[in-house]
């Protein structure tokens, strides 16, 4: 078990170093900060007019919703290099002939990309601090919203890694990841479109935003965790199959 986690640690450390040595993370972080800062400023100004709403409803809920949506685009860009570049540079053979198992390789890649995304999310910590200065104190909502965003991002990253394992082309990898995520998002719309209540609920359950909302509203249920971790497990398994298909 120790060796299993040590393998993940060694590879994710290298991946994390690669990520932070590339300018892409800083460019994406800057764009993300500008976009989130602008949105936060606007929601804050608008909240003055919305006197019947709390700061949570007027500022935090939409901000975390937007943050989640923006990562729908950012996560596939962050993960596009994971396997596609390894295939292109023929370094995947180095990993596949090592003592690391497929799952160690996949989990290390997911972990490194998750930590990179967490760094970007951490930059938004300034928003609750600004709110705290005006007397905001619903910290449990802030914590559960951040937990929701991070878990959503983890789901997006598992999809992005899977997309990256399917191709050698970075652009195709990013587009594929984005299309899969968008398709999954559309489940909730499909749920609304049907008259069949049971089918509607099933579609809603399959969409990530449905579970993310539970976190932001502070109403976390155990099935939210079950869904998120099953989702990550499912796409990790698909990535494993994709890597294994090289041997077929």
């Amino acid at each position, binding site marked *: 078990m120790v060796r299993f986690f040590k*393998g993940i640690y*060694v*590879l994710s450390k*290298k991946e994390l170093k*690669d990520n932070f*040595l*590339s300018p892409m993370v800083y460019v994406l972080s800057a764009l993300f900060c500008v976009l989130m800062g602008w949105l936060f400023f606007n929601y804050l100004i608008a909240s003055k007019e919305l006197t019947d709403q709390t700061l949570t409803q007027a500022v935090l809920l939409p901000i975390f919703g937007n943050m989640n949506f923006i990562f729908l685009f950012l996560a596939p860009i962050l993960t596009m290099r994971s396997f596609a570049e390894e295939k292109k*540079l*023929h*370094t*995947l*053979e*180095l*990993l*596949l*002939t*090592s*003592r*690391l198992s497929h799952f160690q390789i996949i989990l290390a890649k997911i972990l490194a990309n998750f930590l990179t995304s967490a760094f970007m999310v951490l930059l938004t910590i300034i928003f609750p601090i600004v709110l705290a200065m005006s007397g905001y104190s619903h910290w449990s909502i802030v914590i559960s919203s951040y937990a929701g965003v991070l878990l959503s991002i983890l789901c997006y990253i598992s999809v992005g890694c899977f997309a990256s394992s399917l191709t050698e082309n970075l652009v195709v990898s990013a587009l594929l990841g984005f299309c899969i995520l968008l398709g999954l998002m559309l489940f909730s719309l499909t749920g609304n479109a049907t008259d069949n209540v049971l089918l509607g609920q099933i579609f809603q359950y399959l969409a990530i935003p449905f579970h993310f909302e539970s976190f932001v509203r502070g109403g976390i249920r155990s099935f939210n965790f079950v869904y998120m971790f099953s989702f990550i497990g499912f796409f990790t398994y698909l990535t494993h199959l994709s890597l294994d298909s*090289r*041997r077929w």
Partner: protein
Amino acid sequence: MNLAINLLGVTKVYPGVTALDNIDLQVRKGSVHGFIGPNGAGKSTTMKIIAGLIPATSGLVEVDGKEVSKNAAFVSTKIGLLPEQPPLYNGMKVGDYLKFCQEINWNPAEAQIDPAELLESILTRCKLQDVKNRLIGNLSKGFKQRVAMAQALVYGADIIILDEPTVGLDPNAIADVRLLIEELKKEHTILLSSHQLHEVAKICDEITIIDQGKILRTGPLLTIQSEFSAFKTYEAILSNLGGELKKELFAKDYIQGMDILEHPDGVFLRIRIQGDQDYRSSLTELLASKGNLLEFKERKMELEEAFREIVRG
């Protein structure tokens, strides 16, 4: 026989293509085994199967007496693989890259040496000490190849598989790689594929010739060379080659084959002879009397020619 690599009846079938057809290959411990064949013969596929990168469709593949498919972790520590395309991260420093390669392959249970000590010795042996703090992407092709070879050695593998290690290198870099292989010979079993047949002849003790997924010859280098030294080649330049002389030459049962080429002075003849008997005097007599012989010489078959002869069947 103490075998480092043992392949028995190995077949690899891709949809519509049989890449390897029931091949047997034995590599003795401590030997340097050359694996030669034309492009698409199945060399890289065989090496990937031995390293556990792809499975064989059928047959037995053993490394150090253990079946590859059932002992993936053991094989990964036992074998150091240098694929045809060197697996290098251009954004990493040489030292960091080798340390990373060591960490993902290191088996503390079997290690008899300190990893840092081994890393330093490999850096020295591969002459990489001066560039260990440089980015791999900024190195010359020769240095990159040395780094790629170092990654196969850095975790103490006993068996080193080198897939065309000298391809695309300049003569100086080729000489460096050859020296390194000579150095590795002392401590490792080496399976080496190459198109540079004269390189194989210089380095290897045993060779295997493969073509279209089938092993054509395998055994000690000297045995295969001597087998083909039985084929002599005579080269002659005649001012003319009449039909009568041609007929007479083709009628000789010891002549295995003949190439007739144009030459500024007339006709160039390459006559392949089977058997170790000397036919020089009878042939020169015949050619001089009926074809106005200008030049005549005997050529012994080199490995390169033996290879071509075997592949041609």
